[in-house]
């Protein structure tokens, strides 16, 4: 319940930042994908049915504020959670670097997905042209990931949750 509450509030803050920052920043690509960082944190440190459902819920919340394909971010954030969970289950230890790499890849995949679906359903344009902007956004997200992980760890400790991975 505490985990749900913490990530619920974190999600609202991240969505508020992600939807208002583009109005003030000169380059849209500089706005990090903070929700992916939350999903990766869940995948790295919280293994269970509830965290998986939370990743799906976070994706659905992003779908409400982005694009027109409801379910797309839900699908990809669940996938990011599952892959991070699998990686985390197989590694002896997970640190911020592993998390940052996962965030980078997750941000690239979730960023490219609306365009990919758009192209598959008949939209014009080229996916390659989006790659520089996606790389910048993924890099900014990855650079911020250790800071977000650290803030989340402090908050988890403050409310009595385990900040390290709960391995099965």
């Amino acid at each position, binding site marked *: 319940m505490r985990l749900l509450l913490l990530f619920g509030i974190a999600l609202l803050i991240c969505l*508020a930042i*992600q*939807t*208002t920052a583009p109005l003030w920043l000169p380059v849209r690509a500089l706005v990090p994908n903070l929700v992916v960082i939350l999903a990766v944190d869940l995948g790295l440190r919280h293994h269970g049915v509830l965290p998986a*459902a939370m990743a799906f819920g976070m994706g659905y919340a992003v779908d409400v504020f*982005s694009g027109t394909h409801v*379910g797309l971010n839900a699908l990809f954030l669940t996938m990011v959670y*599952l892959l991070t969970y699998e990686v985390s289950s197989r590694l002896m230890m997970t640190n911020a670097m592993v998390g940052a790499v996962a965030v980078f890849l997750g941000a690239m995949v979730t960023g490219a997905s609306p*365009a990919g679906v758009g192209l598959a359903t008949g939209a014009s344009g080229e996916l390659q042209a*989006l790659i520089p902007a996606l790389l910048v956004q993924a890099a900014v997200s990855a650079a911020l990931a250790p800071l977000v992980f650290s803030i989340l760890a402090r908050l988890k400790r403050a409310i009595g949750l385990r900040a390290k991975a709960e391995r099965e």
Partner: protein
Amino acid sequence: MKRTLLWRYRVVITCGALMIVSLHMLSTRLGPNAVESWSTAILFEALRPFQSSVTRLGEGGIGLVHDYLDLVNVHRENQKLRLELARVKTEKTHLAELEAENHRLAELLELRQALNLSAVAANVIGADATGVSRTLILGQGTDTGIKPGMAVVSVQGVVGKIIAASAHASRVLLIDDHNSALDAFDQRSRARGIVAGVVDDGLIMKYVGRTDDVKAGDSVITSGLDGTFPRGLLIGSVKGVGRDAPGLFLNVSIKPAVDFRRLEQVLVITQTLPQPPSGKKAKS
């Protein structure tokens, strides 16, 4: 044994089930249709106060930051005077902002009168959460009569279409999003086509015949045949016409009349437009 296996793979099984649910949602609600539901309304309402506050803070914040930087390292004797000056400057910035807002609203009012349709003004309070799709969040919703499917315009031209609305907030699909399309024609030659967004940025006009007379600089306006946008609204101007590629149609790129990044206030047309004959209804 079965129970143990289920327990061991519970995360994978849950994720798999959730991904199937996501795919089901995608397949049943694909396309630029209304993403309206109770969950959408709750999230819109939850974020709206924060988005509105940040937008307001940002408007005044730039002036305040400049004033603060000006005041760093001032002499003590002048501090009081400079603070007074800063206050006046802030007030001036605030007044200038109010004047600019007043000017924009007056322009919107003129536009509303020119359109001769019922419409409501709305503030832009947020942008798309991921950036690849192009949507905006407005600070007005169904309480002011806004509903999904309504046209959104600005003084410069066509902005987009409402795709979701809650009581106090709504979301606009911009015309340069790759899921957006509207019926349009070249104002000079009357050549018709569908203006659609491009995945990697910009606008194109599709299905313009190779024999049609379209030139760079021509204005492209709405045809009114899609039942969403009134006829004659400016979409943009022709940036280039590609005739080299093979095919039945020209490759027409459009420069949007509206700078979507600088939008602060828009007009939502709340009056239902007469529907075109079903045979000519265009994708929008």
